């Protein structure tokens, strides 16, 4: 093997456009990263699960966290919420935050929203793995 062959072997291949597009679209719209790669059933199931979880959280008067520099848990909750991508942007834009929380289940709602965001992140990473061929 010549030096040029070795050099060519060490250079990582250029990322395909899909490896950037799939996780980005998947983050913005839950499940869409799979759908654009023709994994329709998986994409629809992911989309239904994540959107349902997020919307049930909103319906339970869950809190949608905004960027903050206060309590550590609040900061982490914001990160979790932000992972929901388009859902988070819409809920902030339309101000879906409850005014006065009157029920104990509202705390469950907040957790539903955070976990929906985290599940969306896992889904976007999975879309990336499909795009680079690590997973079928």
């Amino acid at each position, binding site marked *: 093997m010549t030096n040029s062959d070795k050099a060519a072997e060490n250079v990582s291949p250029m990322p395909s456009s899909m490896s950037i597009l799939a996780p980005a679209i998947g983050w913005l719209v839950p499940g869409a990263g799979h759908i654009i790669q023709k994994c329709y059933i998986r994409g629809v199931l992911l989309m239904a699960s994540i959107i349902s*979880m997020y919307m*049930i959280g909103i319906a339970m008067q869950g809190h949608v966290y905004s960027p903050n520099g206060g309590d550590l848990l609040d900061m982490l909750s914001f990160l979790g919420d932000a992972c929901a991508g388009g859902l988070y942007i819409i809920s902030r834009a339309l101000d879906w935050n409850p005014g006065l929380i009157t029920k104990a289940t509202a705390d*469950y709602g907040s957790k539903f929203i955070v*976990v929906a965001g985290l599940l969306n992140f896992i889904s976007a990473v*999975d879309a990336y793995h499909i795009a680079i061929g690590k997973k*079928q």
Partner: protein
Amino acid sequence: MTQISHFGAAVLFALFASVVFGITQKQTTREMIKYGLQSFAMFVGGVILAGWAMWLLRH
């Protein structure tokens, strides 16, 4: 505002999380279904066990 019982919320949580876990953590369809069902059973079983553990601590 949606009113869901504690157990209902836990089952819904288990359902949605299990679907995503099953799809994202395994390679083949068969493995995905198996892992999703296992996750769901573990989530709901854990809720029931934790519920009984809290009941025993209380009494």
